[in-house]
């Protein structure tokens, strides 16, 4: 009998453990809200959900829903339009007086004032707050005092001297140098206003962020889901056309795609690469494939003597002509990339500086001319070239193989171009930023704001922050400087276009293709589209 009791005890313990497990964590909520709620795919945001600390698309979705800044980018044309800004005035492109509209409130009821902006910007810029988007404030006078450039240096001020509150609804901004397009950068999430509660109890705020946008957060179960509901007192024009949005975390976008087909999900963005060829058949006109503000390029290590010689321009241009962009974008990317013909992006539209034919022949596939040009210049340095990229995401391995094949075929030499795959993105960026490349390497740019300036200055200006190839051209720098101090936007854009022409002539990087954003939606919802940042415009979605 005694043995029997022991067995029973073991079973009892196991049952108790199971019961304990059931009772754990029963606080997170169940399904979504009412019938008018849009169920959309989401990923766990990488960074804390605060405006100046969000630089990836998943956190960006939430920022776009719960915040409105001075400007907002028109979801269709990408033009910066006034949101909270009543007016932004300047005489010298360096000193701006900003007036904000009256009557806007945060969803906790407090009013949006000039302080809401100034405090938020000072917070975002301060190095001690560890905000990833700090550099957005670098144009403001006094940034160097709150965010010293030297590693380990302490800030010498708490606030930027270039920001001054005039009255409740007016403040002035002084930039370090003229920047004519600066007001158009203000649509980025980093420039959002913040309510007092953000500063008073930061941890509580992060648990459930409070903003001034068309939605407010109803519940947030980390790594699971977030439910947003319409903010009734929202003062903007783009009020929500649905009752709310339920964002559901998916670790694998294939699973999200399955759920969409089963009718358990209404909107997915980023269709999995493996499904791109089926998406048209599966979803029909519910499949969305439209340009995003992302350009993929191949850079040359111009800090390496082998690649920087004068003859090398011809070699670089030749390599550009040896890559069959059309074939790669259609075969490998199922037309979710468009062959690039300039250094910007179609989302800017021609009025914003995008120039469809800028690169012309040099970005068109012409194997014979490519071989001629490279041979004339004395061939590839060392006779071969490598193409390096991380291969952990985004079909990089496939297109690199295809690009190298294309080059090898053009040059009639199977060993001319070889692929150098790097396992992880972090490792690849380490190699790139330490200037240790010896051949071509992948580079890409996702715009911070839809401005031609953002596609050129950070990438090609001498010693600019993302100038990975080490390109330096007096002519280019001069044109950028003149554009930034131009009197009006048209003139500025014109000068930026001239600067772009310099890039075609020097070819420090080869434009490959513009990246598209993809999305799909269920039959339950309509009016789904992506904004220039490839984020669905949730406010416009209607539920039937």
């Amino acid at each position: 009998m005694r043995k029997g009791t022991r067995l029973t005890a073991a079973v009892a313990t196991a049952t108790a453990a199971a019961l304990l497990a059931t009772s754990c964590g029963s606080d997170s909520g169940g399904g979504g809200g009412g019938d008018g709620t849009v169920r959309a795919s989401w990923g766990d945001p990488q960074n804390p959900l605060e405006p100046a600390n969000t630089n990836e698309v998943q956190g960006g979705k939430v920022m776009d829903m719960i915040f409105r800044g001075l400007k907002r980018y028109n979801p269709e044309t990408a033009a910066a339009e006034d949101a909270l800004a009543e007016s932004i005035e300047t005489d010298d492109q360096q000193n701006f007086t900003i007036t904000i509209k009256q009557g806007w409130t945060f969803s906790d009821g407090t009013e949006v004032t000039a302080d809401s902006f100034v405090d938020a910007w000072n917070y975002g810029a301060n190095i001690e707050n560890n905000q990833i988007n700090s550099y957005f404030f670098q144009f403001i006078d006094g940034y160097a005092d709150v965010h010293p450039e030297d590693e380990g240096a302490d800030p010498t001020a708490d606030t930027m001297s270039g920001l001054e509150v005039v009255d409740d609804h007016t403040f002035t901004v002084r930039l370090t140098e003229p920047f004519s397009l600066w007001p158009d950068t203000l649509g980025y999430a980093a420039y959002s206003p913040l309510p007092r509660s953000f500063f008073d109890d930061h941890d509580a705020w992060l648990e459930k962020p409070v903003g001034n946008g068309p939605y407010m957060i109803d519940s947030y179960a980390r790594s699971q889901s977030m439910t947003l509901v319409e903010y009734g007192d929202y003062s903007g024009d783009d009020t929500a056309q649905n009752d709310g949005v339920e964002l559901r975390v998916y670790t694998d976008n294939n699973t999200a795609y399955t759920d969409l087909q089963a009718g358990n999900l209404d909107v997915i963005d980023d269709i999995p690469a493996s499904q791109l060829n089926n998406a048209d058949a599966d979803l029909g006109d519910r499949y969305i494939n439209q340009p995003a503000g992302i350009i993929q390029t191949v850079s040359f290590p111009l800090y390496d003597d082998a690649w920087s010689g004068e003859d090398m321009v011809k070699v670089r241009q030749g390599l550009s002509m040896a890559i069959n962009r059309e074939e790669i974008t259609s075969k490998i990317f199922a037309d979710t990339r468009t062959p690039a013909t300039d250094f910007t992006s179609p989302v800017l539209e021609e009025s914003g500086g995008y120039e469809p034919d800028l690169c012309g022949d040099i970005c068109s596939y012409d194997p014979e001319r490519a071989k001629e040009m490279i041979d004339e210049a004395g061939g590839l340095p060392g006779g071969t070239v490598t193409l390096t990229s991380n291969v952990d995401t985004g079909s990089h391995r496939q297109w690199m193989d295809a690009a190298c094949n294309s080059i090898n075929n053009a040059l009639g030499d199977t060993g001319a171009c070889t692929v150098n795959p790097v396992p992880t993105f972090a490792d690849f960026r380490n190699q790139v930023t330490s200037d240790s490349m010896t051949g071509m390497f992948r580079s890409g740019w996702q715009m911070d704001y839809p401005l031609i300036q953002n596609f050129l200055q950070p990438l090609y200006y001498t010693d600019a922050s993302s100038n990975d190839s080490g390109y330096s051209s007096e002519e280019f720098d001069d044109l950028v400087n003149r554009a930034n101090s131009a009197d009006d936007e048209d003139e500025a854009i014109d000068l930026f276009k001239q600067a772009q022409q310099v890039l075609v002539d020097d070819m420090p990087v080869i434009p490959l293709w513009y990246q598209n954003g993809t999305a799909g939606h269920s039959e339950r919802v309509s009016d789904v589209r992506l904004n220039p940042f490839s984020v669905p415009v949730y406010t416009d979605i209607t539920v039937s």
Partner: protein
Amino acid sequence: MGRYVVRRLLQMIPVFIGATLLVFLMMYALPGDPVRALYGERSVDEAQIAAIKAELGLDLPLMQQYWNYLLGVFQGDFGTQIASRRPVMDVITQALPATIRLTVLAFLITVVLGVGMGLVAGLRRGGKIDRAILFVTLIFISVPVFVIGYAYQNFFANTLGWTTPTVRDPEAWTQLILPALVLASLSLAYVARLTRTSIAENARADYMRTAKAKGLSRPRAVTVHLMRNSLIPVVTFLGVDIGNLMAGAIVTEGIFNVQGIGSAVYRALSFREGATVVGIVTFMIVVYLVVTLLVDLLYAVLDPRIRYA
């Protein structure tokens, strides 16, 4: 018995330290800088990177980082995530309920179906049922888990509509049944085969004949004598398997969108979140150690000849 348990618990300390150190070193040896990776392909801000590293203690020498980590662990602090600045403990406790539920379900399925099938097959060795069970388990063992996962998802959820294709609410046991079945399929195949062999062998043992001779009914002879003597290898397997079910469910969790430990460690690895990976692995090590201890104690329950002094 008490002394034995204490000795086993003390033995856990060096294993624990050695294992965490190994994982810590491995994470450190991976190429690439996780703080720099925060900036993606955008402008990199060296001063800010240095400031973040200083705050998280990532600028210290490796051994000092490890020492600080160990000190923290003993105070219940598993470190902080680099990107999200969340305490790793938060990440673990968040993922744990779903994982525990899934594990419990999968484990129950494994035990009930696995031992049940093994018992039937073992008692009717060579018969039709035995051959059918051997065939089914062979399929479970040879077909990769993601194939089974997508097949079940497609058949039970999309075609028959019995359940949702993905887990929307990790607290709803009914939604977890499908992923648990997939997760359990491989283990239950092994358990069924182990049980079958063991039962078939012991069914001809002397004590079974004795039991029959002294007039014990067959069901009683099977449950009291045969089962107890045959379950020792099965229990050993099940003990190790609990750990596999908990941490090795990455594929299943992905297919059914369960936000558990498996997907948490996968995400942490892809972002090179060292503290998170070490934290989860440490937790799993503790689970393994405790389960093996429990299994060893269970031996004594099953077989009175085994005694721990």
